[in-house]
């Protein structure tokens, strides 16, 4: 189990971004972290993967634990060795490397060459499109293929936990469906733990087992995905539905903004 306990993150020594975040991602489950722009979702992921340090951020309070072992003091490559890998938002492939080479680079933390080969075959099994393009420069793949590649590349390190940052961003619904079905299959078959950051709340709550809602660097709401889907605040602010469950219309004459109940 991946757990964050009361994590506080400060950038540049002065800017407080996370104000005591606690969350846990159960093994073999998909946990989603929802929230608006700037809520601190990506910062949360970087606090886990250790990449904060490359951006002059640091965990000043609390800790990050994987199965009881502290991660927050480790450097990024050691975090990967422990089995936690982050997939950035925005499909950051190694543009000048071929698809094959991207996968090899992703397996850097593994020493056995046979494992790397087997890992590649598994990734190509999950994403057959990539296999057809294996010797092409990754920079010339389509957006969906690039997203598949960055997920496949992360899987090459044989992780226990994968941190996915906005995998649906800017992709066609059909491609999103394909990617999410692979993620679901990995969870079911390989007991992969997934921490999914999404702005598309409807999509995320559909696939996830458990969810957290983040605002201004704090967790404001938590619960099983099913329960969150029924929550009237979530419906209003994240799913764009009204109390009755139908799509909200802005044509109604008077529009009162509902007060978020978790603020009081």
């Amino acid at each position: 189990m991946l757990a964050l306990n009361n994590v506080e993150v400060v950038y540049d020594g002065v800017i407080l971004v996370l104000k005591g975040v606690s969350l846990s991602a159960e093994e073999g489950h998909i946990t989603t972290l929802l929230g608006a722009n700037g809520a601190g979702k990506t910062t949360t992921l970087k606090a886990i993967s250790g990449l904060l340090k490359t951006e002059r951020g640091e965990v000043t309070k609390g800790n990050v634990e994987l199965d009881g072992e502290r991660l927050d003091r480790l450097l990024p490559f050691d975090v990967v060795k422990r089995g936690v890998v982050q997939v950035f938002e925005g499909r950051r492939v190694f543009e000048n490397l071929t698809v094959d080479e991207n996968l090899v680079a992703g397996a850097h933390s593994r020493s056995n060459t046979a494992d790397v080969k087997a890992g590649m075959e598994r990734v190509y099994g999950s994403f057959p499109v990539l296999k057809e393009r294996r010797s092409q420069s990754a920079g010339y793949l389509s957006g969906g293929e690039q997203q598949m590649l960055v997920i496949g590349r992360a899987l090459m390190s044989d992780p226990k936990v994968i941190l996915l940052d906005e995998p649906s961003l800017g992709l066609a619904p059909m491609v999103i469906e394909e990617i999410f079905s692979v993620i679901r299959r990995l969870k079911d078959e390989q007991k992969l733990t997934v921490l999914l950051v999404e702005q598309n709340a409807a999509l995320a709550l559909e696939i996830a087992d458990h969810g957290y809602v983040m605002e201004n660097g704090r967790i404001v709401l938590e619960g099983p995905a099913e329960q969150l889907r029924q929550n009237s605040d979530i419906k209003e602010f994240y799913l764009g539905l009204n109390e009755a469950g139908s799509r909200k219309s802005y044509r109604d004459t008077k529009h009162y903004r509902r007060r978020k109940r978790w603020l009081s």
Partner: protein
Amino acid sequence: MPEFEWQFTLVLLTNGIMIGLMYALIALGFVLIYKATDAINFAQGEFVMFAGFLAAVAAEIAGMPFWLSSLLAIGGMVALGFGLERVVLRPLIGRPVIAVVMATIGLAAVLRGTAVMAFGAGTRAIVMPVSDEPFELGPVMLPPVQLVGAGVSLVFLALFTWFFLKSRIGIAMRAVADSQQVAMAMGINVRRYFALAWAMAGIVSALGGVVWGTMLGVDNQLALVGLKVFPVVILGGLDSIMGAVIGGLIVGVVENFAAGYLDPYVGGGTKDFAPYVLMILVLMIRPEGMFGRRRIERV
């Protein structure tokens, strides 16, 4: 107008190719660093000079045989590469390119100065244990020193090409060059690869130092061969080993043709600037060089 002599042309051409391969060897050191760390190393020529000094002094004072003194130069340059990366370059990671450029220019001056301080200003010789008898190939006479130099260059150029294309470490280095942050997220220890790149540049510079030092003699003028690196890498592309080879060959041949055909009319000197004229032309037509990677733009 003297009549066209194909023999003379052939001599110029083979000489150009030999010299060109040796330029490529030095340019390789530059390319290795640029490829892995995105830093432009203006001290490449000084690296070569320093290595030449190491080899010459080891042979002269300690009386080491040629091969041992070359090995010592390689070891010394690897250590120097590691050390400089740690002390000078590492604190500059993430700073603007100009900061790194200025730092390497400063480094060049320091290396030139310390070499004179430590080894004296006199010209020293490196003696390669090969005969002075030129090797005759039809009408062309090839000095064995050049042959060995060109051979060593070819071997190492091939070795490094294989390394970057096929080995896992080489692929990781290219990944680091592509995006440091993503490489880090993939479990790659970026700093270790920066250090490795500088150490590899040290090896190549040491070989270059021995080869060029044998031909030109070792003093702080030896650093000037480093200036030829710029037309070579601009022609070939800053981050391409293949480009360094082709660029080196072009520069070598152009230089020799200029010396053979133009200098008699203008009284000398074209040899020294002809490669730079070519470089400026290339910059206008194809700024990324012949084999350099183009920025991938998706629309």
